[in-house]
């Protein structure tokens, strides 16, 4: 296939052409010069987006649950993008992206993309913030991001989402887990899956009482079963209401300010820090660093002095 011209890419993304959107995301994901150029042009054409983050440990049923809510949410909000993250192998650099296979209810107005975390910790890919900006200039303005399965400390998604659902399933510990910082703190809504399991009800009650006792914010807790459909509609309604609430008040702009600032920080890391490291590799200085021949603390001070 011939390479697409910048104008074709810009126009295609703005139109929401899935073919071109797919190509554009690859350019950004691979951090190519073309990708950066595209982001630079499209920045002026951003629209208001709403990002729903869905996170939780591996195997709780995030993708399967998304398959159940996607129809209801896309009917309400129109064109919807699904970004599904899975981990990159720390050994090979490859990845098995196995979220998409659960999605069976995707219609014409849904765009789906699987993303590897590419060595980045935090449950999301390092280029996710830029891809959100890219998609914001397309007609897909409701965006669901599913993180890779996370543990307690992987809260990257909360910097970029307007609403975060944390998903748990029966058996994941007792109320002490709710007292800990990290994952549980970033939840706006808690969804407990596998509601058809016999121990689900007592786990649900435990989380619910723990949340009302220990959390400052009022967090709704839902018990769902993707297997028999129990509780699914309630979550869809809860998301619709929460979105309306957030967009209707000051919260949306506060979250957008946070997203812009975090995106800027990611950009500094991806473009400036990486360039620095590469230039040290190129001029051979990194070898001196490895051999302990450079006082790294002094060297950094010099660099900053020259740069500022």
């Amino acid at each position: 296939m011939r390479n697409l011209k910048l104008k074709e890419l810009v126009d295609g993304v703005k139109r929401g052409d899935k073919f071109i959107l797919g190509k554009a995301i690859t350019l950004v994901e691979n951090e190519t010069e073309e990708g950066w150029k595209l982001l630079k042009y499209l920045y002026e054409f951003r629209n208001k987006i709403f990002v729903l983050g869905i996170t939780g440990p591996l195997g709780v049923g995030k993708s399967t649950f998304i398959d159940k809510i996607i129809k209801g949410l896309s009917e309400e909000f129109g064109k919807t993008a699904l970004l599904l993250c899975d981990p990159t192998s720390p050994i090979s650099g490859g990845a098995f992206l196995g979220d998409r296979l659960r999605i069976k209810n995707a219609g014409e107005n849904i765009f789906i993309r699987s993303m590897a975390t590419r060595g980045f910790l935090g449950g999301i890919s390092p280029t996710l913030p830029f891809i959100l900006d890219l998609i914001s200039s397309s007609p897909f303005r409701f965006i669901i991001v599913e993180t890779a399965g996370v543990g307690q400390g992987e809260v990257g998604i909360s910097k970029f989402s307007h609403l975060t659902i944390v998903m748990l399933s029966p058996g994941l510990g007792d109320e002490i887990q709710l007292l800990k910082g990290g994952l549980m703190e970033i939840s706006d809504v808690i969804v407990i899956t596998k509601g058809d399991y016999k121990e689900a009800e007592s786990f649900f009650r435990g989380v619910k009482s723990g949340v009302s006792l220990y959390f400052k914010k009022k967090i709704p807790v839902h018990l769902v079963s993707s297997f028999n459909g129990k509780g699914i509609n309630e979550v869809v309604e809860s998301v619709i209401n929460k979105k309306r609430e957030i967009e209707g008040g000051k919260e949306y702009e506060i979250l957008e300010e946070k997203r812009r600032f975090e995106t800027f920080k990611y950009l500094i890391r991806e473009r400036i820090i990486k360039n620095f490291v590469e230039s040290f590799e190129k001029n051979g200085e990194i070898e001196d660093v490895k051999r302990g021949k450079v006082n790294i603390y002094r060297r950094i001070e010099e660099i900053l002095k020259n740069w500022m």
Partner: protein
Amino acid sequence: MRRIRVLIAKPGLDGHDRGAKVISRALMDAGYEVIYTGIRRTPEEIVNMAIEEDVDALGLSCLSGAHLELFTRVAELLKEKGRDDILLFGGGTIPKEDIPKLLKVGFKKIFPPDSSVKETVDFLNEEFKTQRVG
């Protein structure tokens, strides 16, 4: 950094997906980003996925006997949508006499029963050797 993306797909009503999963895992181990469609997908769904995921290669697996119809349809749709640049390969219970027919409609390689996992990995490594990073 460029990564080669591969979609492994199961077209039609066939539920035998152990082979597809073993190949997917082996390709991850070889450094590819692999997206797996899951079982019972239509050729239309598979081609749409290949486009949205912007993959470099598409591997089809079929053990139901319907490979000629399904594989050919996928190749046709890729051409229709302007993505016949995607490297197409396949495997499963495919009789030797069907292989030339599939190669003719655009498949670069078919792996019949008794093919080893390594053959598939080597095939892709060879195809993408100039584009590999890391």
